[in-house]
């Protein structure tokens, strides 16, 4: 049983999904979803412990040895991302049970859970697999289910957002397939570890850089790096609350994981960052992303949309860390990948609570909500502070490392920019705080607005407390991130 954990990690949610469709009952499907996501979290934890002790785990599917067979390969980074994805999954599924009842037709509830579990298993598959074509297959499983989940939003603009995401996402995925095809033509292998050995041995040629370009652009479309981000704000803003919380904290993060895999594991840091100068491309793009998206976030009136733009800025921080191409920078990137997922999860879930009561997340309609829903807004406040990077919150630690990484490279303007954009985060979070805590309640049905139900509050606070916990005691996250970074940098050098 323990030997098969890597494959069970993918298979359990994958099998639970059709089960949800068969039972055709939202209640039972919800229970199945919660159970399978909790089992996934438990397995991810076991795998993480195993990797800590035994190093990289390799699992050969069906007993076929790599590179002929498909290999599942889990190193420190993969185990860390596994924990992140399953953690968010395990928190969002119980949240969804209450939230979905309000936001999605009863007849579609079981289908919602099926799509949700498919998305989860696709994301987990991307993380565990060591076969590059397998990555594409899992990517499409997670993306297709994500498109369907976003289209479940009540607003009709959710349909347009989902369509836009589908077109952009499919183009990105097709780019990835082209890249994979070129690699296969040149090496005859699809196994990542095998490719890492074969690629440097090839005589210098034009095809490998082209393959590298296709793969990185495809992945950057998926992770919504500026200027390939246009699909993201609407998709986050109009999707059902539970979906936004889940996708915002996992889908783009797994895409960043793919970027790391491609740059560091397959092509090797020497090729990606020294020969191809990827850092010189990613650095300015991420700097523009951080600055412009923080600026746009300040002028949003829909709070969900505001957080979506802030997500784009945060993705900029993560990519910035990666582009620095130092141990500290990479640690900061991976750390922020984890912390930001937890932060945004808690923020979007708090907004889901607001949506549950108010049916709107406009700044205007949230006036005076601090008195009506103190617990919800408390969680929002914790998440908001963490987003800004106030000390003793998770955001502080990752930004600390990021600034350190930038200074190490002598890039003090970049460090200054990180501080300045943190102040911009203060501005947009403050707009919500002002409206929520310092203005009178404006709605007519003042008595009907009460605190969100416990089924929503508990998961929201679970993530909010994690924001605080990882801010006060960062040992777990920092150790995992730095060992993952050292692992990545070590390959090929």
């Amino acid at each position, binding site marked *: 049983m323990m030997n098969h954990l890597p494959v069970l990690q993918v298979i359990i949610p994958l099998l639970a999904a059709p089960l949800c469709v068969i039972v055709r009952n939202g209640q039972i499907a919800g229970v199945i979803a919660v159970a399978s996501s909790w089992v996934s979290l438990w397995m991810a934890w076991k795998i993480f412990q195993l990797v800590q002790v035994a190093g990289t785990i390799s699992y050969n599917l069906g007993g076929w040895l790599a590179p002929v067979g498909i290999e599942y390969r889990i190193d420190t980074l993969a185990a860390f991302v596994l924990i992140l994805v399953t953690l968010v999954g395990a928190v969002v599924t119980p949240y969804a049970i209450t939230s979905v009842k309000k936001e999605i037709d009863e007849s579609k509830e079981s289908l919602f859970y099926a799509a949700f579990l498919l998305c989860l298993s696709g994301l987990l598959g991307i993380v565990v697999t060591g076969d590059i*074509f397998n990555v594409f297959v899992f990517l499409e499983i997670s993306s297709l289910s994500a498109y369907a989940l976003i289209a479940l939003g009540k607003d009709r603009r959710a*349909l347009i957002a989902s*369509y836009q995401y589908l077109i952009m996402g499919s183009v990105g995925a097709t780019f990835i397939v*082209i890249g994979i095809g070129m690699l296969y033509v040149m090496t005859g292998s699809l196994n990542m570890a095998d490719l890492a050995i074969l690629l440097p041995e090839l005589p210098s040629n034009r095809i490998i850089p082209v393959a590298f370009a296709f793969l990185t652009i495809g992945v950057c479309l998926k992770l919504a790096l500026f200027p390939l981000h246009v699909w993201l704000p609407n998709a986050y803003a109009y999707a059902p609350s539970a979906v936004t919380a889940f996708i915002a904290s996992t889908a783009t993060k797994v895409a960043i994981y793919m970027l790391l895999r491609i740059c560091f594991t397959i092509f090797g840091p020497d090729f990606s960052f020294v020969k191809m100068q990827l850092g010189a491309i990613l650095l300015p793009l991420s700097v523009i992303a951080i600055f412009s998206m923080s600026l746009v976030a300040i002028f949003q009136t829909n709070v969900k949309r505001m957080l979506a733009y802030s997500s784009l800025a945060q993705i900029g921080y993560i990519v910035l860390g990666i582009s620095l191409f130092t141990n500290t920078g990479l640690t900061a990137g991976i750390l922020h990948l984890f912390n930001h997922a937890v932060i945004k999860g808690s923020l979007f879930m708090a907004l889901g609570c607001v949506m549950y009561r108010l049916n709107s997340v406009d700044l205007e309609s949230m006036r005076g909500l601090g008195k009506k829903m103190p617990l919800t807004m408390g969680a929002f406040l914790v998440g908001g502070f963490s987003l800004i990077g106030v000390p003793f919150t998770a955001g502080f630690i990752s930004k600390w490392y990021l600034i350190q990484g930038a200074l190490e490279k002598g890039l003090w303007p970049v460090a200054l920019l990180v501080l300045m954009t943190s102040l911009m985060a203060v501005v947009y979070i403050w707009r919500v705080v002002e409206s929520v805590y310092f203005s009178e309640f404006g709605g007519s049905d003042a008595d009907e607005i009460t605190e969100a139900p416990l089924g929503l509050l508990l998961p929201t606070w679970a993530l909010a407390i994690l924001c605080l916990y990882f801010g006060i005691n960062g040992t777990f996250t920092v150790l995992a991130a730095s060992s993952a970074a050292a692992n990545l940098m070590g390959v090929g050098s």
Partner: protein
Amino acid sequence: MNAMGLLNYWFVIVLMMIGFYVLIAQGNLVKKIVGLNIFQTSVFVFYISMGKITGATAPILDSDWSVYSNPLPHVLILTAIVVGVATTALGLSLTVRIHEAYGSVEEDEINEMDE
């Protein structure tokens, strides 16, 4: 390597650019999906043609032949075709729902309605 030897790749590039152009330039949601399909088809052709080996036969064991085409790209692309069908189906069903909600499948008209 002369230009004729790379003929299949030229076709792939032309097809890819046609698909990509349609995808970008068309404002009609159905035509965009057609463009996406052409774009994806070019990648299928790319994979299938790269498995071909000059003078080789189909990869079925036969006593008269010793050289076979590489079957792996074909198998890979079967998966990608299935994914393509799923994407098309989802895209078209979204278009149907957009038509129900907006009464139009033209991008500019839809954008006007949401202003």
